[in-house]
């Protein structure tokens, strides 16, 4: 930790202590950096409830698109800028920033907030050395979404926990005319094709690095993963899949062009929504596939709220986080917007709530998917890192973006699986050497 950071931390703590001793209820202005998706926008609409409980705290919102948000908050937290008091960050940032001492630990939230109610996989992903550094706002995993009508027509039945071989068989049987058996991410990017492929590689027994941080793209497991993916997509995927990310595949699925789609659990509410989706009434869900090795090909992500060490109103920020991530907030959303719209994937109690289970047919599968991911030991083999669809080191985003381009080139037929892996191996080794591992 740099001197500047420790000074910032110390002064933040001092101010927090001082304000705690002078006033009972926290006050001040809390600036919140957040991402522009539906659940977050909904939260802004419900701040009247927070203001009624904490009249002395003023909330200021900075709502940004995901990539811009990531840049802004990274810049702010790295330079200890103090622009924001609450940051919306993901499971990739929390372990790195927590270890750097850039975040305020959230171990002293009120007892009624009930940290033990958090889903264990999500909680583990946000914990560094035993301390919770961010409170999950909503969590997601990935799962198989498939067309029940096409599956029936093909004479197959989707098991709750399919294998990759079954997925290939089903994809072959469902591909006909302008319906493609399977749609998967192919667009280059660490949060696009690499999120999917890294999670998929776990179920094939592959890993990014061995215990000495040597890149493992030359391993037979990676060759198997990539060969399977490439064959599957080339034979049964949509044309131009190398440019398809989440949004492109969502459109294809909603138009009824995909037999199966393996992607984020949040997509379930989009594909079952009759106003947007032409196939809303014939969508089934299953766990992400496996190969019988003990890991499934699903990921784990949670948009979470954290307090940067540079914040000047730590107490007020914590009060806001405790409000926004509590089960009371869930009930508030349900009251105003209906149970189907509450932020999912963070608390056990939500999945025991009969109202929610009735309103969200995908709830059971979402919970099982989240529970089957283990960020602390993502691969069957031993790894020196945490993270399911990423490696929680600062260099990962850069390396994975470049590796993602090689894999996208492969999917577009511009190089073979072997060439793609050889290049990925070379550039990962270079980058890791340059970073001093």
């Amino acid at each position, binding site marked *: 930790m740099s001197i500047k950071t420790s000074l910032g931390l110390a002064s933040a703590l001092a101010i927090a202590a001082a304000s705690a001793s002078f006033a009972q209820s926290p006050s001040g202005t809390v600036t919140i950096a957040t991402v522009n998706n539906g659940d977050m926008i909904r939260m802004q609409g419900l701040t009247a409830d927070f203001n009624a409980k904490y009249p002395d705290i003023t909330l200021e919102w900075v709502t940004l698109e995901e990539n811009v948000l990531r840049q802004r908050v990274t810049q702010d937290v790295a330079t200890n800028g103090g622009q924001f008091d609450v940051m919306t960050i993901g499971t990739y940032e929390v372990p790195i920033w927590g270890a750097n001492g850039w975040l305020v630990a959230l171990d002293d939230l009120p007892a009624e907030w009930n940290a033990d109610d958090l889903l264990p996989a999500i909680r583990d992903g946000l914990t560094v050395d035993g301390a919770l550094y961010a409170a999950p706002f909503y969590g997601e995993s990935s799962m198989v979404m498939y067309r029940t009508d096409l599956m029936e027509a093909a004479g197959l039945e989707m098991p709750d926990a399919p294998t990759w071989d079954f997925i290939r068989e089903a994809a072959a049987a469902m591909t006909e005319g302008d319906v493609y058996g399977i749609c998967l991410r192919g667009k280059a990017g660490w949060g696009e094709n690499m999120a999917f492929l890294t999670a998929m590689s776990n179920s094939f027994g592959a890993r990014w690095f061995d215990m000495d941080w040597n890149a493992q793209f030359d391993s037979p497991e990676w060759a198997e993963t990539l060969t399977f993916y490439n064959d599957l997509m080339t034979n049964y995927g949509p044309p131009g899949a190398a440019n398809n990310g989440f949004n492109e595949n969502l459109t294809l699925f909603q*138009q009824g062009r995909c037999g199966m789609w393996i992607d984020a659990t949040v997509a379930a509410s989009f594909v079952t929504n009759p106003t947007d989706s032409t196939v809303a009434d014939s969508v089934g869900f299953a766990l992400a596939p496996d190969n019988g090795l003990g890991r499934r090909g699903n990921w784990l992500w949670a948009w979470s709220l954290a307090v940067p060490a540079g914040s000047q109103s730590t107490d007020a920020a914590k009060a806001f986080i405790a409000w926004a991530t509590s089960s009371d907030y869930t009930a508030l959303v349900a009251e105003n917007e209906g149970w189907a719209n509450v932020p999912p994937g963070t608390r056990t109690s939500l999945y025991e709530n009969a109202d929610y289970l009735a309103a969200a047919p995908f709830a059971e599968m979402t919970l099982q998917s989240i529970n089957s991911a283990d960020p602390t030991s993502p691969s069957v083999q031993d790894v020196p890192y945490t993270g399911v669809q990423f490696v929680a080191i600062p260099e990962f985003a850069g390396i994975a*973006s470049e590796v993602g*381009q090689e894999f996208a080139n492969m999917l577009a037929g511009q190089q073979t699986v072997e060439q793609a892996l050889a290049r990925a191996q070379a550039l990962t080794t270079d980058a890791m050497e340059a970073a001093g591992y």
Partner: protein
Amino acid sequence: MSTKASRSAARLMLAPAVILLLGWMLVPLTMTVIFSFQRYLPMRGGFQGWVWFDNYRSFVTSSAFWPSVVTTLVIVGSVLVITVLLGIVLAILLDQPMWGQGIVRILVIAPFFVMPTVSALVWKNMFMDPVNGLFSHLSRFLGADPILWLSEASMPSIILIVSWQWLPFATLILLTAIQSLDSEQQEAAEMDGAGPFSRFFFITLPHLSRAITIVILIQTIFLLAIFAEIFVTTQGAFGTRTLTYLIYQRVLESQNVGLGSAGGVYAIILANIVALFLMRIVGKNLDR
């Protein structure tokens, strides 16, 4: 007539503007140069020590460097050729008196006012998409397999999008130049028996040479920095990673400010070399 005193007074009065301009240019440039000598990793806590020319060495020895330079030059070169040639044709056509001239001119210029991100998205999703795009419907209607524009023909696609955006600029400049062409000269040539081709090559084209020079110079400066079109369509995959995009990846995706700044300095050098060549080749037109 200026005395010594009035000259120094003039200098004094010019000083604020000059200082402002110098600061405007020099501060960011100096910052970039300073950063390029540092190992500066925001995610590792920022400044990590001085490494002097290590960043410069690793930037050029990276396997991505030379392909990105070639990509940049190919995109700039192709777009220049396309926009200048088509620009001349369009300018001549638009100069002809016709019904609805005003509206046609506005329509031709319109693409220039569309933001690069928006136009790239429209091209990507509405034209080049292999399932839902207009081009794929067209080729299926003709009985052919749709072309996977952005993956199989990624460079031509990018060049197409960028050319579409910059063609109006070239047309506009060249049109104003043609309008300033003396019609009596044309008539005289016609009476002397010059055909339409000789009139074009011996009167119109020489008249346009200065305008063409300006188009080439201004476009080169902007084209060396194109980013949005690549960011939105291919994310630098399929051999479309330009030098600008590589620098973006180094700074923001790899979070390596020092390495990216070294790349920035190389980009400045490349831009100056290209500008120098262009000035040499076409710049003499400006002296006349």
